[in-house]
């Protein structure tokens, strides 16, 4: 090693030492310098230092760690790749992070029955990569799929560009092994049996944002590659025309595999990033539309889509020439969030859901918010299912901008809730939006949900303080809301 001296020996305390006994000495991080990069996940507006990071290698270790921490009364959080966008894996301060990234094996592949069993640290994209040569793929494709774990996907019930037709993570989970906050190991879902009598616990666990249990094994559905696939790119001068085209495509009975929209600022971002396509910079928005299925019907669907676009004053519309061009269009789109780094030091992504038809109106309101808070806002839209991502651009180094960004974000969510939508489509509530839960739920509805949590996680020791507003804060939020005139 090229170091002068050995690391300064900061003696681990008794709790750390015991954790080391359970999982091994090298599997525990506890020095300030080693912990600091665990202060936050993909959402950087809120930070907290963990007490330690523990790398687990198997289910038994997870259970042993949980049992020990329970006995000591120490809170803990499961962590995957830390790409979450709502602070789900971010400590409030003093929790032990249980990192599942070293549990990254595929345990079983059964293509005949179209399923795979993976450990929670298995990377989303790896699954498709490892079966694509055999003609199969895993459908949920969050844009973070290069890095995020399937365990994290289950916890967040993640969606992706192709979830319009195929559904989000919960539609692809057949079974889970979960370590409960008592340390007990349970199995949910029976091999391949789609529906079982009794409560749908699988559904409850999926999307519970790591507050009900730690997922240690996942059985997922894999699908056969569609016979054919075609992708269309359409440039519009007016957002209203683009939205109208979206509605008409769906009204025509076509269910595209993906239907994505990006506005002008978002285009500026992706064109400055790693995979520029050469989109014109002066258009109002583009639509990226993909259809797949049996080869026979595809051409007709494409013709129909092209007609709808032309009927709606499209400036230019084209079909991907080959797989290379299609790949580039998608890479460009999937870089969307990260690309904001190329045009702004920081960004805050919001995750609202709106009825598709209200898009032009919502975007007008978002433009007003942008003006009011004096911050640029880009919009990336899963147009097909109405999941809108306003990306608020700011510079955390300039005093006051983070706070303004946060308020602007909240205001965007309020707009979504007001048109009959929701405050999260796929990124979860986490720390970020726990207060905004009040935009869509009454106090008693929230209480009913915390009661469900209490059945699994009675002391709120697993991922504490997430998902639901802290009792004390509701008054402040309401005051804030009336002050802002929202």
């Amino acid at each position, binding site marked *: 090693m090229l170091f002068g001296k050995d690391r300064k020996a900061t003696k681990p305390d008794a709790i750390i030492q015991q954790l080391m006994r359970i999982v091994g000495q090298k599997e525990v991080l506890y020095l300030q310098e080693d912990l600091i*990069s665990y202060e936050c996940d993909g959402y950087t507006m809120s930070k907290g230092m963990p007490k330690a990071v523990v790398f687990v290698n198997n289910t038994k270790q997870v259970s042993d760690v949980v049992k020990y921490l329970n006995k000591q009364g120490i809170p803990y959080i499961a962590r995957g790749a830390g790409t979450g966008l709502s602070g789900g894996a971010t400590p409030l301060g003093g929790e032990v992070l249980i990192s599942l990234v070293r549990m990254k094996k595929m345990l079983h592949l059964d293509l005949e029955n179209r399923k795979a069993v993976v450990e929670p640290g298995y990377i989303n994209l790896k699954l498709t990569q490892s079966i694509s040569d055999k003609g199969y793929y895993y459908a949920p494709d969050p844009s973070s799929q290069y*890095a995020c774990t399937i365990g994290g996907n289950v916890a967040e019930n993640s969606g992706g560009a192709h979830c319009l037709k195929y559904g989000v993570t919960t539609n692809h989970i057949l079974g889970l092994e979960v370590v409960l906050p008592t340390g007990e190991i349970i199995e949910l879902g029976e091999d391949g049996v789609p529906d079982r009598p009794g409560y749908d616990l699988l559904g409850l666990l999926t999307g519970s944002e790591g507050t009900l249990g730690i997922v240690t094994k996942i059985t997922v559905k894999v699908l056969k590659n569609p016979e054919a696939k075609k992708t269309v790119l359409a440039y519009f001068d007016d957002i209203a025309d683009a939205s109208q085209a979206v509605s008409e495509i769906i009204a025509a009975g076509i269910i595209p595999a993906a239907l994505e929209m990006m506005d002008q600022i978002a285009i500026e971002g992706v064109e400055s990033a790693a995979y520029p396509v050469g989109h014109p910079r002066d258009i109002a928005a583009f639509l990226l539309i993909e259809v797949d299925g049996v080869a026979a019907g595809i051409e007709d669907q494409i013709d129909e889509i092209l007609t709808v676009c032309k009927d709606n004053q499209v400036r230019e519309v084209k079909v991907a020439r080959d797989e290379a061009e299609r790949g580039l269009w998608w890479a460009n789109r999937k870089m969307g969030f990260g690309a904001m780094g190329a045009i702004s030091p920081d960004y805050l992504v919001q995750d609202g859901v709106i009825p598709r038809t209200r898009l032009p109106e919502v975007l007008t309101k978002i433009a007003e918010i942008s003006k009011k808070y004096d911050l640029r806002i880009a919009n990336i839209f899963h147009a097909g299912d109405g999941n809108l991502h306003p990306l608020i651009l700011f510079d955390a180094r300039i005093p006051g901008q983070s706070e303004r960004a946060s308020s602007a974000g909240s205001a965007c969510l309020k707009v979504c809730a007001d048109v009959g939508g929701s405050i999260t489509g796929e990124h979860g509530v986490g720390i970020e939006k726990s207060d905004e839960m009040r935009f869509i739920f009454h106090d008693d509805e929230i209480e009913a949900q915390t009661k469900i949590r209490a059945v699994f996680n009675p002391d709120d020791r697993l991922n504490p303080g997430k998902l639901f507003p802290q009792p004390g804060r509701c008054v402040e939020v309401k005051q804030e809301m009336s002050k802002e005139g929202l």
Partner: protein
Amino acid sequence: MADNKGRLVDLLSKDNVESGAPCETKRLGNYLWDDPPDENKWADCVHCGMCLEACPTYQETGEEQQSPRGRVYLIKAVAEGKIDVNDAFAKPVFDCLDCRACETACPADVQVGGLIEEARGQIRQALPLTGFAGVFSRTVLRGIFPHQNRINTLGGLMRFYQKSGMQQLARKSGVLRIMPTHLKDMEAILPEVGKPVQGRFPDVVPAEGIPKQRVAILTGCIMDVMFSDVNEATIRVLTHNGFEVGLPKRQGCCGALHVHAGERETGKKLAKQNIEAFKEYDKVLVNAAGCGCALQEYPELFKDDPDMLPLAEAFSSKVEDVSKFLYDNDFKRPTAELKTKITYHDACHLAHGQGVRFEPRHILSEIPGVEMVDLPDADRCCGSAGIYNLTHPEMAGKLLDRKIDDIPEQVEMVSMGNPGCMLQIAMGVTKYGRSEKVVHTVQLLDWAYEKEKSATTS
């Protein structure tokens, strides 16, 4: 113009290293020394994590601080005064392979490599090396590399070692047994040391036929000692393609190893020497990816020096990898056949560092009789990473194992564009008892041309 020239000489002769850099110290949080990391580089990072899985050290450890995102975060944390420049900070910063895979993956174009090098510069000033590492750094990095004559002497000694029977003696006598394993593995595959092209070839090698253009090549310090045959091949291939090849005498080591090790001042000194040495040329071709990358990044070294910066920028824009240059200049397609199956490994500093992936593959595929077989994950680092395999044998070993494992069974040769990778992969091939020949891309082209020439003369 005359003025500029005068200034150039002036600047280049100003040797900051020995004179102890009297310039003003710019402090930044807990970075207390000259030349701190550049704030704008981490401001680009949005903490998205898209780089995580691209990073070999994260793939192996799963630890956030061993990932590009984590390293950037730590470097920023020092500037924010949250942590100090100490050993615990130094570890992840020095464990980085400098492979730049993260820069390919990052959507926001964060220059992770530059940040790491800048941070290393701070660490080396904060924690001067002691013990063996200090001796190594002082004698080898500062004492030998900056002086080509000393490298040549060393090369001469090695040649003597190999030719005189000493090597055999050493192998038989068991002296090698007391060396650490990775050094032993290395000794076993040291290429037959040839004679440097510098000195054997004229300063300017004429083109075959009417010269199209005048180019210079970086002969490289180690390259010219250990891989002089690659340099010879490069000269032959270029002259065969109608280029007049200059071998400027005063050029020296590119400084990559120094900059990677945090010895930025020596790096700057070498950079100035090279900028001066190549000033007569408009094109500087490089056959060692790591060196090429270092030359292209000279501006990064002088980011806080407004006088040198424009010179460094002008210089770096002249630098190009030889395979890209040949491709862009419509290289002569060889007609002779080389019947062989080849796979191609992407040197990090070619693929990630310079974005050169397609060109060398194209050159190989244009050689008649060459059958290309894909190498899975071809652009994952082999673990050599400059002197990383000496400083971090364990991580380097794991990466080498994976690389060798990936080489398809049926190939006869593995081609690449970097001597560091050639040494490392040759070591792997020997260690696992495999038989693939490890070659440089231009060597293959050279063989094809030579075969063609001998066919036409006979």
